């Protein structure tokens, strides 16, 4: 998982660094399945695609607040799905989404 190419000197975060940062700053993520997909995985992202799968209601509202704060200086593009929607669309498989926890644990 590479750094955003063309600007390493500018301190843009790698996919792994983003995953570590999100898992550390958004405690509500423990109630959801969280993934990264798209170009940031390959180091060429103009934004950072995140998929969140899980319940709605208050838990989701709290998570959105945490992600909004965490994303104040990052170009997140966040897609929220209910488990049934992910099942219908097979989004994780089709878009080759990687769990944030796997990214955070990668070298």
């Amino acid at each position, binding site marked *: 998982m590479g750094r955003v190419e063309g600007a390493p000197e500018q301190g843009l975060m790698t996919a792994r660094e983003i995953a570590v940062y999100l898992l550390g700053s958004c405690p509500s993520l423990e109630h959801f399945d969280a993934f990264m997909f798209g170009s940031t995985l390959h180091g060429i992202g*103009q934004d950072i695609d995140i998929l969140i799968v899980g319940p709605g209601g208050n838990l989701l509202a709290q998570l959105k607040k945490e992600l909004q704060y965490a994303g104040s200086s990052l*170009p997140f*593009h966040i897609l929220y799905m209910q488990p049934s*929607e992910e099942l219908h669309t097979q*989004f994780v498989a089709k878009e080759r989404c990687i769990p944030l926890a796997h990214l955070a644990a990668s070298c």
Partner: protein
Amino acid sequence: MNWQIKYALAAFAKERQSSAEHVGGDLIRIMTQDRPDVLAAITSVETVDQATAARYREQVEGLDFLCGYRAECVWEGEAIQYLEENCIGWGSFGTLSSAALDGNANSAPHKVYKFSDRLLRQYGRVEKVDREFDRIHRITLRSGATFRIGMIADYEPTANEVRSMWDRFGPVDIVWNINPNGTPQPEANEAGRELGCEVMKWEELKELLSRA
């Protein structure tokens, strides 16, 4: 250098046809062979209102384009009107990249909503279009009927997107999935029914407007 400028420059560094340099503050200059240079402001705001648009125009002489870098950036109708009247393009980073290549940066509208906006305005039964936000249109038909229409561009709109639109922009009569290849999820349709609106594609919307 702020975060959105770093990302914008990093993205242009991957481009083959255009290059970009930081001018200062929120400003970058984009150079493309055989096309006019583009002076663009890259803003991190979540909502561009008329005051924000006016501030950029007044502070930046020769501004060609105002870019909302955040994916969720919303443009208010008055801001859109102000920018278009002053020959300043507006929209997402993708819109800016395309406009620099096309050489029309100071007249380009947000490309996500460009064709659906035009489709409504050119539909014969529509008498008046009031663009409240980039994605929210209140239309009046020649019959006198009115509809408040919200546009969702995603390939597979979800229940959350329908509810978020309702929460952010207020009640709409119709949620229009403007992606021609899109398929709203059953959960999105159900969310629309619960809220009191219908989620549909253009063919269904056209049929509805033809009967209203």
